[in-house]
């Protein structure tokens, strides 16, 4: 599966959250990182090139800071110019059909404010309706967004959890389940470089970890099977 990440930020180099995400990208996945402001500093978008990029990928992600309940201006301009009739919608405009579409949002306020009665008063699901409508009109499958609230206040532990969540959001098949995350982690552990692990026993420990994860899975599946048997009665 090929993933296209379209980043829009007026000063991406100075953004702590955007830099963190960019550095977090896995090294060996089929991922294209596309920063609009770097590619088009003058704002002149190459429409044909952008449409080709879209066609060549299966999962399209918009990554941006959530300014005034929307994207930075260049991403809006990109939508206006690239998602044309006969390409993205309308007669024979089916080039994006069945692709996956998701949002990766950096949000300045805490999550609790995005609900009725909160300071913002509306949920992220309500505020992102135009993007949902865009996905619907173009026939794309709308994924649950990856929302990052108050990145600068995150602890190191939270940031590391975000790094893995981000990698999984980009590369894992949807819907993401406990089982699919287990499989993903096992694969990643296999690939992880040994030279940055301090102890000589690291390989042995990681092998033990694998066994425990796999044993736990067997146990979970057996429990589910028992439950299913009772449900059938």
């Amino acid at each position, binding site marked *: 599966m090929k993933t296209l990440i379209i980043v829009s930020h007026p000063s991406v180099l100075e953004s702590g959250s955007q830099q963190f995400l960019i550095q977090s990208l896995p090294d060996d996945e089929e991922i294209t990182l596309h920063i609009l402001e770097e590619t088009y500093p003058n704002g002149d978008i190459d429409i044909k090139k952008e449409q080709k990029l879209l066609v060549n990928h299966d999962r399209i992600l918009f990554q941006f800071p959530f300014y005034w309940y929307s994207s930075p201006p260049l991403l809006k301009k990109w939508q206006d110019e690239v998602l044309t009739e006969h390409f993205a919608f309308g007669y024979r405009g089916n080039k994006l059909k069945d692709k996956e579409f998701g949002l990766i949002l950096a949000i300045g306020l805490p999550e609790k404010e995005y609900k009725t009665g909160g300071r913002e008063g509306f949920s992220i699901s309500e505020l992102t309706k135009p993007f949902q409508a865009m996905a619907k009109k173009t026939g794309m499958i709308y994924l649950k967004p990856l929302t990052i609230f108050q990145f600068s206040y995150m602890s190191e532990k939270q940031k590391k959890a975000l*790094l893995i969540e981000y990698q999984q959001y980009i590369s894992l098949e949807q819907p993401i389940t406990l089982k699919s995350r287990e499989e993903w982690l096992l694969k990643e552990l296999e690939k992880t470089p040994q030279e940055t692990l301090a102890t000589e026993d690291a390989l042995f420990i990681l092998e033990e970890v694998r066994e425990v994860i796999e044993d736990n899975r067997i146990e979970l599946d057996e429990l589910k099977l028992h439950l299913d048997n*009772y449900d059938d009665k």
Partner: protein
Amino acid sequence: MEENQWVKNQLRQLEKESQDYKQKALLQETLALLLEQEKREEQLKGELDGTLWSPGNWSS
């Protein structure tokens, strides 16, 4: 699953000593996954318990 304490401690240690940030993240979240699996197991066991004790299942 509780007897896996040794593995969890080793994972914590590996993370602490790793010299690579992405690797640290991977090890931290592997530990988190183990804990999640244990929680899921408890939930399923509880559900199974509840099902076994439900009067609806006594007739069979």
